[in-house]
């Protein structure tokens, strides 16, 4: 692949032509899909989770959606289980696809009961496929936890550590531990994975969710014969949650050297760059592909590669974690920093959204003048706290800009702020 040569990268010793893998999910359920993905240009796949035979059976009606105003999918969830095909069929297909596509990464996602024998039994067959690594599915939040697997393991750090250790013991492949976001502090399971000897973590898995309720039938969606259950939420709506969790692990002293495969609502190259800047070494994509098909890989690669070239980054690691030093605790933020909104009258279309937002819900810092044919909105600078709300509500990209104000004051954090009764002396 001559094109986008700067995207070639290595993750825990596994070489990949680009940092884009398809996450363990329906798109990687079988050889047919995976071959189509490789043909489209994806760097790798995490094969949909394998388990013990007999394979689980899925229900009909599996996905629920959270729409935006114009039917754009903000997020959706699923109540699917791990692969519903037999272990051997999957292992055979993996072996063949890996043989046919040697430059592409295949990671095998696994989920078996939390018993040493179960893991010991399944690992040799997986290793024999020639796959590049394994990913432990400790994240699936629906169905499988009721059987003591998936998130039921991921929510107990001791189990994570124990299973990870078994995998390292019975298998020579690199081990990625996939984390669930359905916990209070993602650093704890990450630490456990680290202690267990994991080569990397991947996160986030999907979030417990009910996307909607059918008000006619009073059934949660997706509805299975009039009843529903919580499913795993994914898509661009979860990106902010995932970004934060990735950064927490990257910033945490105990896990800061643990490689991260970033997952969660990555829909375009910009999202990918953001995950990488906050600690991910590569990224996994699922929902965007499920909504648009595998062809999006072209924009993911092209966009990221061109942006890197413009920025002078020769490879992914050049900008990996670059935003981490700027990600800090609230207490370290500069309280003497000041920004205020500025409304660019030439770009303002006069919708008044900023006024409604500020007047009704914020700081009454926008002035409305002129009559209806000549309306002008401007910022009352002394009232503006620089909250960004007006800029956020503004439908025009350049109409409201937040401008830094030079206060002439030195950096002052809450730690040292005179109003803090527990302030530390500098």
């Amino acid at each position, binding site marked *: 692949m001559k094109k986008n040569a700067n995207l070639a990268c290595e993750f825990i010793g596994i070489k990949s032509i680009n940092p884009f893998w398809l996450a363990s999910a329906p798109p990687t359920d079988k050889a047919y899909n995976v071959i189509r993905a490789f043909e489209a240009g994806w760097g790798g796949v995490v094969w949909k989770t394998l388990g013990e035979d007999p394979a689980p059976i899925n229900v009909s009606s599996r996905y629920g959606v959270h729409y935006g105003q114009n039917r754009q999918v903000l997020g959706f969830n699923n109540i699917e289980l791990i692969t519903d095909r037999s272990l051997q069929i999957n292992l055979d297909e993996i072996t063949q696809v890996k043989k046919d596509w040697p430059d592409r990464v295949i990671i095998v996602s696994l989920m078996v009961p939390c018993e040493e024998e179960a893991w010991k039994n399944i690992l040799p067959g997986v290793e024999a496929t020639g796959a590049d690594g394994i990913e432990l599915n400790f994240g699936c939040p629906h169905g499988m936890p009721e059987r003591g697997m998936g998130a039921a393991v991921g929510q107990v750090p001791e189990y994570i550590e124990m299973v990870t250790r078994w995998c390292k013991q019975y298998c020579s492949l690199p081990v990625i531990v996939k984390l669930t976001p359905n916990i209070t502090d993602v650093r704890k399971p990450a630490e456990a994975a680290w202690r267990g000897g994991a080569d990397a973590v991947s996160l986030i898995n999907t979030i417990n969710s009910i996307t909607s309720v059918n008000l006619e039938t009073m059934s949660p969606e997706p509805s299975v014969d009039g009843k529903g259950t919580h499913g795993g939420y994914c898509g661009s709506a979860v990106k902010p949650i995932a970004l934060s969790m990735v950064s927490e692990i990257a910033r945490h002293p105990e896990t800061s050297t643990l490689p991260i495969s970033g997952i969660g609502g990555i829909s375009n190259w910009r999202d990918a760059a953001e995950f990488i800047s906050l600690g991910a070494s590569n990224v996994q994509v699922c929902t965007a592909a499920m909504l648009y098909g595998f062809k999006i890989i072209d924009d993911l690669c092209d966009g990221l590669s061109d942006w890197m070239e413009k920025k002078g980054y020769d490879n992914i690691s050049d900008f990996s974690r670059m935003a981490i030093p700027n990600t800090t605790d609230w207490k370290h933020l500069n309280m003497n920093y000041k920004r205020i909104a500025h409304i660019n009258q030439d770009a303002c279309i006069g*919708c*008044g*959204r900023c*006024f409604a937002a500020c007047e009704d819900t914020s700081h009454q810092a926008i002035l409305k003048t002129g009559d209806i044919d000549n309306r002008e909105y401007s910022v009352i600078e002394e009232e503006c706290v620089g909250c960004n709300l007006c800029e956020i509500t503004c439908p025009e990209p350049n109409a409201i800009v937040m401008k830094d104000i030079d206060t002439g004051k030195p950096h002052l954090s809450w730690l040292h702020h005179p109003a803090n009764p527990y302030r530390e002396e500098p």
Partner: protein
Amino acid sequence: MSIAHDIQSNRLLDAEINDNFSDMTPPLTEKQVLVASERCLFCYDAPCIDACPTDIDIPLFIRKINTGNAHGAAKEILSANILGGSCARVCPTETLCEQACVRNTCEEAPVEIGRLQRYAVDHLDRSLPYPFTRENDTGKHIAIIGAGPAGLSCAHQLARNGHQVTIYEAAAKSGGLNEYGIALYKLVDDYTQKEIEFVLEIGGIEIKYGQALGRDISLKQLRDQHDAVFIGIGMSNVNALNIPGENLAGVEDAVSYIRDLRQESSLANLPVGRRVIVIGAGMTAIDIAVQSKKLGAEQVTIVYRRAQSAMGASLHEQELALKNGVNFVCNAQPTKILGDKSGITTMEFNRTELDENGKLIATDEIITLECDVVFKAIGQKFSSSPLGSDDKPILDHRGRISVNENYQTSLSDVFAGGDCINGNDLVVEAVDHGNKAALAIHHQL
């Protein structure tokens, strides 16, 4: 019939004509509604509301549409404008709400307010109770003259307030211009009558047909018998060209032809000229030109004495005419119509130009156009004769009924609205007059 006066019926097949007169702007699909409604920015102090004569809260109704609450959206519209359904179809939105839409600024494409309004009103859920209730009977009885948009909105508002209303209508049907004047392809499927049925559902409104002011009833009589009177009789006279040949066969009033067309059950029966000239530059001129084309006229030319940019018809309307194959000849002032007893053959014009003071003057250049039919569409006039001779309301500088801000005439118990008072002669404006007059009457009684 000689080729020189080629006026005949059945120029097109019934099927062709029916197709030509189908809904010009069909309803938005559910998906289109979603896309269109999502574009509304829910402006604060929205310019579109200000641009709507009836002050419909447009952002609010569009938001309700977008959340799947079309019934709520319809209630929002109808509470401000009981004829919101027909206004959605006939309003020149491109010069009203949609012109004011802030989406024009950067995208040059307003939110499709008119079509969204139609969607909302069409989706009023009739399985739910009628959205308006009547106050307790006040014992007051108001006479309304004319069952057009002004009279109907006035009647509905008064009925809501508990008054008894009798509408005196000269024609055999109610609706006024909506029934007799609007181009057929803008209001299809007998929408006007369906809408009026909805208006009357409030109760307390009686319509007496065939009752023309000055012929069957007098203002004095109505004032004696009622607590207040609202006049909404529109304009009954048509401006004349005042040129030789105006009385020859083939010279027609656009308004009366449209009136016949609107009531004709088989459009192919209408006599249509092969070569049609339309004199005028307003909505009526466009309407008659386009409808002539749709009826099968070969050549339709709108002739206007000023430049095209000065036309009263909006750009949107002009484009509609062009799209339908209508020609425009501008800066041409009618001088005479030529023909013989059997009909007209040609019309002559003087080329005009603006002098150094910006005044329109005729030049020596003569333009001759062949024609079988000439439609006069140069405006209508209010006729005050039905008002009677004594105790009649004072007229204004345009010769229409003079009213104050409450739509009250010089007679304290007589109110007026619609095209018979000064304004822009729009349906939506008439609705507003009727509404406001009703509220003023209610407060006065």
